[in-house]
């Protein structure tokens, strides 16, 4: 067995799967049959498939690579030719893809639902913060309708720019999950920026806030942590910026959101990360099918929302 496994690893490496972006690694039966590693929107992506059919897995993963590439071409701010970059540059975009329309619609929806603590118009503020400029509130956030979305055209108010970095990774994760389901891969673990476990098999997932693993299934999990990108160590400015003030609040060390789709989990984890715990509790209670595990700045673990989604709180180690 170890012999053939090694041979398989060698074959997979030699195959140089998908232009060398990812790498397939064979493992024991109980563990994923395939783990693919790559990148999505600058973040690490990792997909674990379970099943005996290696050829089917390879074919499906080849499509996953193309799909991630396609969505990067929609959402990436690092590509001048992406739909989002063109929208920000030109102030309007005709014939946008469904993905952009839906994510923009959802993002503006979350902007309303969260009272502005999640806001895709934060891009100018983010750029200023990344450049080390003093904190200012998001001007676009105060505008009544900074974005006009119709299925055939998206238009921005003057001076506004969008970022979907707090939601698009979730979208990509959902899209990849959907694609793999079409190939018959349901019992899988998808991590294309955010985590999604669409299958019914319960799996242990490490939650940094809880300092433990939870046993979950049929759920998406998104985690926000200030420490993952600190812009200015002395000024305590990190990548999670409150659009309403331009500051980076210090409410949470880490906060994980459990939701049915990665897109929702992603958007809410971004919103919750800048809200104090009582506001998080209120918001979580107002949205169905959402649960939160967070570690506040003092290290205290707090749980809100639908406890059944977080594996009934049972810790697995």
């Amino acid at each position, binding site marked *: 067995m170890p012999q053939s496994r090694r041979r398989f690893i060698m074959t997979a490496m030699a195959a140089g799967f998908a232009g060398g972006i990812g790498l397939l690694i064979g493992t024991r039966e109980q563990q994923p049959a395939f783990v693919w590693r790559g990148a999505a929107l600058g973040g690490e992506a990792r997909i674990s498939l379970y099943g005996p059919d290696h050829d089917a897995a390879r074919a499906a993963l080849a499509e996953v690579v*193309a799909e991630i590439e*396609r969505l990067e071409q929609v959402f990436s701010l690092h590509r001048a030719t992406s739909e989002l970059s063109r929208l920000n540059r030109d102030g309007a975009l005709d014939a946008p893809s469904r993905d952009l329309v839906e994510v923009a619609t959802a993002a503006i929806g979350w902007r*309303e639902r969260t009272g502005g603590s999640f806001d895709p118009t934060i891009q100018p503020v983010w750029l200023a913060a990344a450049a080390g400029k003093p904190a200012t509130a998001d001007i676009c956030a105060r505008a009544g309708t900074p974005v006009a979305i119709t*299925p*055939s055209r998206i238009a921005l108010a003057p001076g506004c720019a969008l970022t979907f970095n707090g939601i698009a990774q979730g979208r990509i994760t959902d899209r990849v999950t959907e694609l793999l389901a079409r190939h018959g891969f349901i019992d899988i673990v998808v991590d294309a920026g955010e985590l999604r476990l669409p299958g019914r098999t319960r799996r242990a997932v490490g939650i940094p806030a809880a300092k433990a693993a939870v046993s979950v299934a049929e759920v998406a999990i998104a985690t926000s942590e200030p420490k993952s990108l600190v812009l200015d160590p002395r000024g305590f400015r990190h990548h999670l910026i409150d659009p309403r003030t331009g500051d980076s609040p210090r409410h949470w060390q880490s906060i994980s959101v459990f939701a049915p789709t990665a897109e929702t989990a992603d958007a809410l984890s971004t919103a919750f990360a800048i809200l104090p715990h009582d506001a998080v509790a209120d918001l979580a209670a107002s949205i169905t099918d959402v649960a939160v595990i967070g570690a506040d700045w003092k290290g205290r673990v707090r749980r809100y929302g639908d406890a059944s989604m977080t594996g009934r709180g049972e810790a697995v180690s």
Partner: protein
Amino acid sequence: MGAGEARTTARHPALGLVEILPIVHRLLLIAAAALMTTAFSASAATRGAQPAAPPVAPDPALAARLFPGVTAPLSIVRREGTPPLWQVDAPGGPSGVIASTWDVAQSAGYSGQPIDILVGITPGARISGAELRRHNEPILTLGISTADIARYVGGFSGFDLTAPRVEAFADSSHLPPIIAGATVSTGVIRDAILRTARTVAVSEGYIRPAGGVIDRVTFSQRAWSDLVADGSVAHAAMSLDEARRRFGEIDDPLPEAGMPFIEAWIAVLDPPSIGRSLLGHAAFSNIVASVGPGDTSILIAGTGFHSHRGTAYLDSGVFDRLELIQSERTIKLRKADYLRIDKLALDDAPRFKEISVFRIPSSTGFVATAPFRIEISAERTRKDGTIATLRSAATYALPKSYFAAAVSDGEPQPIWVAAWQRKPFTIAAVATMIAWVAGAFFVQEFFVSRPALWLNGRLAFLAVTLVFLGWIAKGQLSVIQVVAFLHALLNGFHWETFLIEPVIFMLWAFLALGLLFWGRGVYCGWLCPFGALQELLNEAAKRLGVRQVEVPFALQERLWAIKYALFVAILGLSFYSMDRAIVLAEAEPFKTAISMSFLREWPFVAFALALLIAGLFIERFYCRYLCPLGAALAIPAKLKLFDWLHRRPQCGRECRFCETQCTVGAIDTLGRINPNECILCLRCQVIMNDEAQCVVLKRRAGRRPELNPSI
């Protein structure tokens, strides 16, 4: 005195510079390296700023020649783009395009200089005509008339570009025969014409690019059930229950039951067996007529509750509910590319609520033969004000049975690969000859200590060189190749140009090493067919008692200069005009005597014979005084790393026998061997080791009894 000491070979005493020589060598090598670097960077620079030698524009008369049978007047319009073309239109409609091989394929000839051929290509993917406009091919101007080239180039007219790719050089009735003696240039021309024509035919949509190509001809009437069964029609569906569950609490509830929420059937219409079967002859013809080359038509037919069209497209021009996704491409379907169909031609098809045909332009990058998916999405507002979306996807892969046989493999194999594959025997034989020469020099001492072996071996080898290498394999190097190489260094060096003639390439490759190891003699003395011819004739003459003319060394030294002057003149002239340099290079009788086996106009033959007759009295007369190739090779011969020709201290002082015996008079009155003139025939080495000939050995043998008085 020990025999060992006497046998010790010594360099010429006058050379007391032995210590300095390595340093001189090193300096020369450094200088050469610097020179090469400069030449290469210069060539890189010129390549970077490729002088956009504008192709000669076609005039109406030329266009008429390229499109025979098209009624004048023709309009010719230059179209800048990739590739740039001239669009040719006749009163009756478009005739096709004219492309320049220099524009499209940057066709460079043997010398690295541009070859420009204008090629006419018809929309039917045929070459209508081709005309050579500009070239600097050395070999073409030699012995082959412009009419031959024009006939060769013109022979491509009527060539069908959709025909299976013809191996370069392979005998083929599709293509004009190669011009004898000009295989390099004809290969380049053939490659340039076919590559240009194929590139243009693909870019103009005259032929579909490689990879699966849809068979647009074969038709057989199919039933709906067959089309669904083999995947010609794909299906997407979502039930009302599932839609209800996914939407959640929505303002405007979905109906309780009846039909599916989404149900759609999709098909690529391009294969007649699908398109014509589904739509019927009239509608299918109508669609095919309105679709551009390279475009694809797709059918989407729905039976579900949710319309795939919606109504937003009427205002926005974009179908917001539909998305075509192929690999990393997202393609929006547009109103301008949409056609409504009311009914399918098949009786057994479901009753559709709506049928749409979409044209997918080739500019979207869509490839009909690759898998794709169509996503139909639906949106509802929930009771809490949020918007819920869902989508259903149908994946489609056109069955391979609708693919036509591949037209050509897009990027053709480089022409030189075929050249090497074509003559395995010749290549092996020449490689063997080269190995023999190299081997003989590596075991030189063994070889030269056996006079009979040396003489017979050498004559036999020269015979092979003349007959096989020269007359059969056409392996005669020429000074023009040296000039072409230098020009290539300046104009952009391409290995391909030199690899195209395997025998010549092998000889030059060996010569490059041989020059460093031994000097030019490895070629001149052993592998040059004309040299072999001279030497064999002279050998025969000597055996027949023809008196040899002794050239005094002082005169000999001055006559040597002629060949260097000739080489510099050819090289210098080549920078002014390659054509004239080639005419001057006719001073080489190689083409007459070897490449064309004396089958040439009488002045050329007379000249070659005159040289050979002179050679009967003065051995290797041509080599000694006239050969510009020898001169070109003698100059870098200074670089040689080893000095494996032995001399005795007595040579030149006590004995000057070798000097009189040297084939080319390369040994001076002091007994030194001039490496620039030496052809490495090894005769002096044989003499030196032969007690019957070497005076020093004779004298030593005579003294031997005195050293042993006891005998």
